[in-house]
């Protein structure tokens, strides 16, 4: 197990306006969506994992926020799932195809897919997440323009595709291609302090996990609920948007979305959440 070292508590306190750090147990409840779909939100970690137990960010939110995710009607993220379904069935590009032209019914063809990404792409020689796979399909098969990062359609379609794996345990293949070396690079980045505040991902999400910075209950920072509906933005937030936001908040320059750095981080962070159910669209603060 790696530890992030001695934490810069003083720097944190200054930066966050925190006067004290308080620990609170994650909420001891079970997430069952619509009283039907039982979600795995606390699972025993693999032997080489830094935690004993992998816990979904759902447990760190207030009762009201947790309730929003437990009811698929109340969950505003489902609006974007519906929008994504429309895009799935819409013909675009020079080849006169929609996603459905090749992949038919997403409920069948995409079941479990979101749980297994990022995935090694031999042709590109790098891991692909859902967003990159969508763009490759658009360019190579549909003759359509790739989506720009965080275009509303990209977020909606990614949300729709990942939602087809709702409840499936996250399980990525690190044996394929060079995935292991991307995992290694992601791990390095996760523990590297950065920015004027000198914070690593691990500072908050491992070292201070379960404590509060200001009013924020620090989760383990798992990726299983992304894209996630954030109350703050009142919109879907992609994983790379959240990565960049976190890095920005350390007052560092942040890498481009889908850059090698952030793809490596996605591989590693997704691995840390293995075993948790895909929650897309999760609801967070």
């Amino acid at each position, binding site marked *: 197990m790696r530890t992030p070292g001695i934490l810069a508590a003083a720097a944190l306190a200054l*930066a*966050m306006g925190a006067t004290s750090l308080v620990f609170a147990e994650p909420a001891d409840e079970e997430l069952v969506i619509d009283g039907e779909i039982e979600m795995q939100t606390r699972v025993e970690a693999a032997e080489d994992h830094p935690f004993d137990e992998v816990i979904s960010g759902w447990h760190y*939110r*207030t*009762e*009201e*926020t947790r*309730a*929003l995710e437990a009811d698929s009607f109340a969950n505003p993220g489902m609006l974007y799932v519906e929008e994504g379904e429309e895009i799935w069935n819409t013909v675009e590009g020079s080849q006169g195809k929609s996603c459905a032209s090749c992949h038919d019914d997403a409920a069948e063809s995409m079941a479990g897919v979101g749980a297994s990404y990022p995935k090694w792409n031999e042709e590109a020689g790098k891991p692909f997440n859902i967003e990159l796979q969508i763009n490759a399909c658009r360019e190579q098969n549909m003759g359509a323009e790739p989506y720009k990062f965080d275009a509303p359609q990209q977020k909606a379609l990614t949300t729709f595709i990942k939602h087809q794996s709702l409840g499936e345990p996250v399980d990525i293949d690190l044996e394929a291609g060079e995935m292991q070396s991307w995992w290694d690079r992601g791990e390095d980045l996760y523990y590297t302090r950065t920015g004027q*505040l000198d914070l690593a991902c691990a500072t*908050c999400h491992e070292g201070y996990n379960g404590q509060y*910075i*200001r*009013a*924020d209950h*620090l989760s383990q920072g798992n990726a299983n609920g992304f894209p996630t509906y*954030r*109350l*703050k*933005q*009142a919109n879907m937030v992609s994983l790379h948007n959240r990565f960049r*936001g*976190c890095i*920005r*908040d*350390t007052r560092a320059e942040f890498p481009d979305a889908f850059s090698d750095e952030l793809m490596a981080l996605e591989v590693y962070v997704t691995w840390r959440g293995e075993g948790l159910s895909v929650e897309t669209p999760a609801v967070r*603060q």
Partner: protein
Amino acid sequence: MKMNRRQMMAATAGAAAFVATGFRISPARATPEATQEAIDAFTGGAKPETGRITLDAPEIAENGNTVPISVSVESDMTEESYVEEVSLFAEGNPEAHVATFKFSPMSGSADATTRIRLASSQNVIAVAKMNDGSVFMDTKEVKVTIGGCGG
């Protein structure tokens, strides 16, 4: 206007929360006085009684952009006796009036839930107007938290 220290602190916290929740600071903030005027306009000056109406709101809201709020009023909801309207007010928002629910005997039960924006920690007030002209009120204080690093 002279401010004492507490008002100044409240104003500063409010300003931070405005930025945090996507509102920008507006020179014309609602005040308890302006809120009272809005309530008087709604009730026609009738003095609100306590009881019969329950306002449910979280003690602590994780983000002021989306705060779940429910109201429930005891009433038979018959043609003879029913709740006509329930107005919601937020005395620390740029505009005090948040929404007005309009019921009818066909509602069966005077319950409603929505999600609202709160610019800062403040009192939320629900006022119910019955078809006989009587008025009932409930108030809840909601603390709006400021998130982690990004606010």
